[in-house]
């Protein structure tokens, strides 16, 4: 959901203030008089999202100019964070265009000492093939007592807390359909 243009400035945090000064109440009066008004040097943002760090679930607004994210700051309408962000949330922008970020498929052949860039198609086909091979070879239909178990213990799945709910649900659905029982995420660690 995007907020309307008229709320644009509000998202910059006119509503934020010290606790004792009262969170939520606008407390900045207009700059008047002779002194110059400085131009905002970048867009505040109008696309809302949720911070990608801890589980407080702070709202963020994302400013996009020319197809690029130029600014990420707290969503002042969000009832929990009220426009605030900690150091991580405030640094979140640096994730997007980080030179450290992996933006192409990387493949490491057995015994190799380096990554190779591969196409998605080749990689996905090979992963699917590996999953099928491993599953077919190690599938346990019945245990030693003859009870139906229909499971695979040779494939493990780990992760989830960086997914959205829809993504983790989809992966869990796929994993269970494949018969995976070694299924785990960050809840314990």
């Amino acid at each position, binding site marked *: 959901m995007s907020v309307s243009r008229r709320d644009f400035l509000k998202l910059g945090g006119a509503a934020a203030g010290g606790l*004792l000064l009262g969170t939520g109440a606008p407390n900045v009066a207009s700059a008047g008089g002779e002194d110059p008004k400085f131009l905002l040097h970048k867009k505040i943002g109008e696309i809302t999202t949720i911070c990608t760090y801890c589980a407080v679930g702070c709202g963020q607004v994302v400013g996009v100019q020319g197809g690029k994210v130029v600014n990420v700051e707290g969503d002042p309408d969000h*009832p929990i964070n009220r426009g605030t962000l900690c150091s991580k949330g405030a640094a979140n922008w640096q994730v997007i265009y*980080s030179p450290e970020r992996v933006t192409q498929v990387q493949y490491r052949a057995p015994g190799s000492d380096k990554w190779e860039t591969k196409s998605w198609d080749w990689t996905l086909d090979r992963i699917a093939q590996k999953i099928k091979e491993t599953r077919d070879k190690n599938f346990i239909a019945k245990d030693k007592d003859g009870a139906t178990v229909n499971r695979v213990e040779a494939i493990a799945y780990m992760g989830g807390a960086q997914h959205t709910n*829809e993504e983790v649900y989809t992966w*869990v659905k796929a994993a269970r359909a494949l018969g995976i029982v070694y299924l785990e995420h960050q809840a314990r660690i």
Partner: protein
Amino acid sequence: MTNHIADFANSDVIWVMGGNPAENHPCAFKWVTKAMEKGAKLIVVDPRVTRSASAATLYAPIRSGTNIAFMGGMIKYILENKLYQEEYVREYTNAAFLVNPKFEFNDGLFAGYNPTTKAYDKSTWTYQLDDKGVPKRDLTMSDPQCVLQLMKKHYSRYTIDTVSAITGTPKDLLEQVYKMYSETGKPDKAGAIIYAMGQTQHSVGTQNVESLALVQLLLGNVGVAGGQVAAMRGLHNVQGSTDMAALYHNLPGYLAAPTVRDQSTADYLKRVVPTTSDPKSLNWWKNYSKYIVSQLKAWFGDAATKDNDFAFNWLPKMAAGKDYSHIPLFEAMKAGDIKGFIVIGQNPAVGGPNAGMERDALAKLDWMVVSELWETETAAFWKRPGVKSADIQTEVFLLPAASWVEREGSVTNTGRWVQWRNKAIDPVGDSKPDLWIANQIMNRVRAAYKKDGGAFADPITKLDWNYGDGLPNAHVIAKEINGRATADIKDANGVVQIAAGKQVPAFASLRDDGLTTCGSWIYCGYYTDAGNMAARRDNSDPTGLYLYSGWAWNWPVNRRILYNRASVSPKGEPWDPKRAPLKWNAANATWSGDVVDGGGAPDAIYPFIMNNEGVARLFAAGLAEGPFPEHYEAWESPAQNLLSKQQNNPLAKIWESDSNKRSDASKYPIVGTTYRLSEHMQAGAMSRNLPWLVEVQPAPFVEMSEQLAAEKGIKNGDRVIVENTRGKVEMIAVVTKRIKPFNINGKAVHQVGLIWHWGYEGGSTGDSANSLTPHVGDANTTIPEYKAWLCDVRKV
């Protein structure tokens, strides 16, 4: 969390123990300060003066691994001084229930312990039942067999002297904490306990948390505004991924994952559905069958029919009693039993316990798929320092994942708020959203099984997986999780309630006859025909209790305070009229405020509808190591257990091996623990790659007292080595007044704290504290014992 973050502002006393919200959840902390502005007190109990403690009204030190002793003393203090909220305890907990006379506790062990199997026969951990099968109660709570009296007896050993000798907390501070917090036992007072991994990551982690719950129940602090057991979870969607059950033992919505004992839905339901004979107990889990059948319908669609038991046997079944969690997963990997590993957005090579061993285990894999934004330590384990890449035969796929602004979907915060994220830009470079990746892989696997067949292909080929060829629409999947009607659903008179294909409005409408689908019953209602509830943005607060019921959506059924029925007396009067999340309007027989638990008139049902007793359990037979939390020392401890002969949790899960040796106190006398920094995130990939965060916290360090530093000849800023039987790490010493040596039964015991975010990859590298942590798990959850172990420190 039973309540949610903004609810801290309703509290009179907030007690932080085993957590550090100012450090790890800074934006939640404003609600703590908001409460303090209104006069609330903040207690922080922690081995060191933390960022949270800097704001505290009262700080007390504690040796890591002794929380139950601390809380046991608290329980004793509450019970002996009669500071509990009597009516709440009597009516809403099992305090008045009479327990089987054969139940006993003796020198650290409850009745029924079998030393060979290291497990309990729990047949005496039961209530006395009347002839209708309803538990007997003594409403005076004076019967020696009633739970309250048994509890009093159990904790009578937790005297201030003993507790102080175990925890190292000075006696006066213990008493101050107990006194300050038990003030909240008054009906018109509310207290919240905030905790995180400092409670859970112990071999007694579940019992630690139970001890908090017991205190909260005794003081009437559950279900009320400002009273909660506040688990502060770490990652932005760790709550959602728990709800969606990326966990071996669950299916989405906290349904049990089937085991070999569950050969049919009938077997399964018989095993997992609790029963009650008490007419006032709603026993919500009686609806279990509706949830599992609707879920099977969501997964296998038309292929799940009554005739094939809704394809129940297509679900994998675990070996009975087998643990498939993090530690045994890596043990199995090390043994070569696991060939393929898919790891998404997680970095066990830094975050896993005994990380050195877990890194070695990765080399036993045939293949590994990593979906990430970064080249993590896990992805790059084969070229880590000290190994020869040529010797490692694992085939590794590193898939570039899309970042949080490059995809849409919902995430669930620690207060169970399901909130929608909007997409801002297309994924950078060749990166792709996880939904796309999952879809592409499954489409290919499905095509291969359809074409070539293979082992038990049905669950794969007949899986309801129609997400198209490209990027699946997150809204479509959200609707699937919420659930819909597969055919017209009519009432007794034949009137259509929900037309075929329409979304199910709430889980009360789910059915076990195949007429509804629902991917996760607790999320039923978050994406209905009325729209995407997770995207709601009404931040008004009509109750003045910071419920914000119009903002996003709270599972279950947008209920902001769980067990909120306990906020009113059996007569329907709020314990505290000034802060009542619920109001019963007798005139028109309705509730206003939050969404009530259960429904009906106040005295119609008991408030804790998820328990088959209908009340909360002070005596909790469900736990592995006993119905009352009992103090045991950590697996590695510098002290003898002063409370019993049982040095350690007799049921703790321990993998002792050459790569997981126990460190002995004679050689490694210092208690070690791990923790995080506000400026970094978990295993570090999301922060060590951001130069702004590296700038503000450039390297891992170990905090120690001035006294320990003096003993070891260490100066602030020196490089030091911390080591034990599992490994050694080199870090900078931060010598601080904020940690003091503990007086443990007359002996000075030192503790050090290590920052664990670092590893060998990314923009900032450093040693991983988890090279020192053990493969030892809690008896119930197998959560690793990260927070209390032994080590030694020396200058480089």
